């Protein structure tokens, strides 16, 4: 790896790395606060490496949620990742191992960081190094938090809100980026309907309703365009 790639990657990650470290620390605290051994924090962060999902997984696992429900939740919560590859500059990465890691570590942050820059200015080693540095921040943060939590018996009740705040921030970002209000409003409506009709399975019902609503809306808007043409 050239020195310039390492320098560029460090500069890229400087924007998001500290935040991932802090968030990782609260994830580690949550892991031990939920009654799991500290080493589950690095296991989750190395193997799954999907920040927001990991918080959810700990809560679901502690509640003894059946594996099928965990699978469906993962599918829906990380479903957005299936769209990241459409614009992530994977073609800039030349080595096979680099491309595999590039896909494995395609997180929200990696996507945001490397689709915001012109692909021609990015080298493969810079992208892969940036992704590895981000994972390092996340794993080190999580392990630190978990060790601190088990060592000092640290328990902060307000900390559970970090998790909610993370999704509030992601929702705000995505809503601003989507540049329209009907989608988010549809989501709120689906959530409220699901909460009323199926409070126990709210998340699954709401996600199903929302995907169906988007499909219907797409059908309508494309037939309107066809009629205009």
């Amino acid at each position, binding site marked *: 790896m050239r020195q310039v790639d390492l320098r560029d990657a460090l500069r890229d990650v400087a924007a998001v790395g500290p935040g991932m470290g802090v968030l990782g620390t609260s994830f580690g605290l949550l892991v031990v606060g939920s009654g799991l051994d500290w080493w589950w924090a690095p296991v989750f962060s190395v193997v799954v490496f999907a920040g927001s999902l990991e918080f959810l997984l700990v809560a679901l696992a502690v509640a003894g949620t059946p594996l099928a429900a965990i699978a469906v939740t993962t599918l829906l919560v990380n479903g957005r990742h299936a769209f990241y590859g459409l614009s992530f500059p994977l073609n800039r990465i030349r080595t096979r191992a680099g491309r595999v890691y590039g896909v494995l570590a395609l997180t929200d942050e990696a996507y945001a960081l490397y689709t915001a820059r012109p692909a021609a200015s990015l080298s493969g080693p810079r992208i892969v190094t940036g992704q590895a540095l981000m994972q390092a921040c996340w794993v080190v943060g999580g392990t630190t938090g978990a060790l601190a939590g088990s060592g000092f018996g640290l328990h902060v009740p307000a900390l559970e*809100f970090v998790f909610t705040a993370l999704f509030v921030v992601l929702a705000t970002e995505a809503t601003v980026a989507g540049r329209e209000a009907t989608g988010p409003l549809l989501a709120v409506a689906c959530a409220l309907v699901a909460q009323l009709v199926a409070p126990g399975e709210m998340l699954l019902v709401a996600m199903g309703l929302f995907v169906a609503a988007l499909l219907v809306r797409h059908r309508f808007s494309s037939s309107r365009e066809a009629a205009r043409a």
Partner: protein
Amino acid sequence: MPDTGYLIAVVAVAAAITVALRAAPFAMTATLRSSALVADLGRHLPAGIMILLVVHLLGDVPLDGPLVGVRELAPVAVTVAVHLWRRNALLSMATGTASYAVALALLPG
């Protein structure tokens, strides 16, 4: 604490599905990748799913007291406002969590 075998299965299932999702678009054919439906879903699904998760997380709080909604909704509003103002995720989350700590102190459940 859940047993180790179950936790290993949880990690394995979540990791396998996450990897499959991240790899899926690279395995798609060019026609599917450029379809209008995929583009439409890619644009509008993320915001909606995040909103559903927020409502789900807030839905865990009991809504039977008169002031209960305020204790959770006010910190959400603070988080959104700070985020729209500064666009700094860490600052928004820190302010939101601090305001939740204040709300917990003022309105103990």
